[in-house]
């Protein structure tokens, strides 16, 4: 089980465990506020924006080119931004903390 912590815009802390799929799917399944994943995970909508805790960036990796472009839709995007449909759940991301973008 891989543990992922979400912090919503109302500062609610939600700890979830998953094994496969994307981080977005896990969040949507548990109704994490602010993560919609409207396009179903094909990097077309930018409705699953999270800020990765800086020290976890090595675990999640940085955003890809298309992801970076899509993130520009959101004025709050920064160097820690990711679209979490593009982060696959695996042991290597165990323990990451993601702040759901406003």
């Amino acid at each position, binding site marked *: 089980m891989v543990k992922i912590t979400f912090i919503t815009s109302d500062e609610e802390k939600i700890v979830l465990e998953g094994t496969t799929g994307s981080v977005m*799917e896990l969040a*949507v*399944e*548990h*109704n994490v*506020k602010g993560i*919609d994943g*409207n*396009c*179903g*995970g*094909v*990097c*077309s*909508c930018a409705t699953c924006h999270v800020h990765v805790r800086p020290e976890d960036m090595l675990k999640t990796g940085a955003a890809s080119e*298309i992801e970076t*472009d*899509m993130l*520009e*839709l959101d004025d709050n995007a920064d160097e820690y931004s990711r679209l979490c449909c593009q982060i696959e759940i695996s042991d290597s991301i165990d323990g990451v903390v993601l702040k759901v973008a406003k």
Partner: protein
Amino acid sequence: MKSENEFICVVVGASHAGVNLAFSLRQEGWKGQIFLFDTDPELPYHRPPLSKTYLTDNNEVSTSPLKSKESYEREDIVLNLGMKVTAINSIEKSILLENGKQQHYDKLVLATGARPIIPPIKGLNTAKNVFSLRTAADVEEIRSVLKNQPNQKVVVIGGGYIGLEIAASLKKVGAEVTILEREERILGRITAPEMSTFFHDLHQENGVAVLTKKNVISITLNNDVVCDDGTVFPADVIIIGVGIHVNTELVKKAELVIENGIKVDPSTQTSNKDIYAIGDCTYHYNSHYKQYVRLESVQNAVDQAKIAAAAITGKEVVYDAIPWFWSDQYSVKLQIVGLSTGYDNIVVRTEEKEQPCFSIWYFKGNQLLAVDAINNAKAYVFGTKFIKSNQELNKTKLADTSMAFKPANFIQVELNN
């Protein structure tokens, strides 16, 4: 007086709009009961992949659910699947189910969507292997026909996005695919000629025959598709992709106003104050484009669901989203923002890249209406921002690829004399 826990919200239609409405209602603090009804027996699933990955997956069809079964239970949302609502009694405030039972509501939300148009083609109802695509069951049937013998002849009637996506997917699994479009070009109603040409060529290059000005008039007993110019196309499978009808039968009985869809105000309320409508079935006002529109999209379904949930829980809200869409065919990603209806000039910007990467900018005078972006998320994103801000652009610079793709380079600056 009822306490707020006793209020009942009934939602007819449990797809993108209905399901998102139910969950948004909880997020907005609705304490009462929520009942979702849908005729589809499957746990509500993402629909855009129906014409894409669901058709091409090697495994059994596994639809990806919008929400897990547990999350409905957790949020106390009651799912009634495989159940048809047959009537609305808006005076008594109840719905009637196929099994004869009634369900009272305080608030009713119609998310009834649409169904494929089956054109009046002679012989179509007796032809074999005729499919349209709207549900997981449709995918299942198409797959089962092609399963053991993928290299069959598929004729797709209609060169819109759904037809093109199905063509690309079935080609990928090995079928011999022909697209028959009635108009002079595919995507004719919704894109500029340049975009039609691009997709026409893309399909041809991938081995799909695209034929235009083909008006299908009949299907013979041998399952041959016959056009009015005398051409004949033998078909093992016939796919119908010529558009949709809004499901308004229920509504007619409830005496709501219908105009090219169920008419709703900017808070998604219908002409009856206790009945809301969201998603594909609505005819709604778009405040950015200052016109009533009907949209077939996930974006509209989800965004209207959120507005309806807020309105039902007593907030003052106005739907003002800029529409967006996407389509994936072969390895090409198309992203669209805005509504190009009524455009009178375009700018085409082509980036120097190995794979096709360009964008079409639709203007009415100097107002940017919409952007179609091919493998170009940047254009889609900047287009979204420019449309939202009503920013006037310098079209010459926009078309000039020696100018780097940065918003500041395209914004028209008024020079002082």
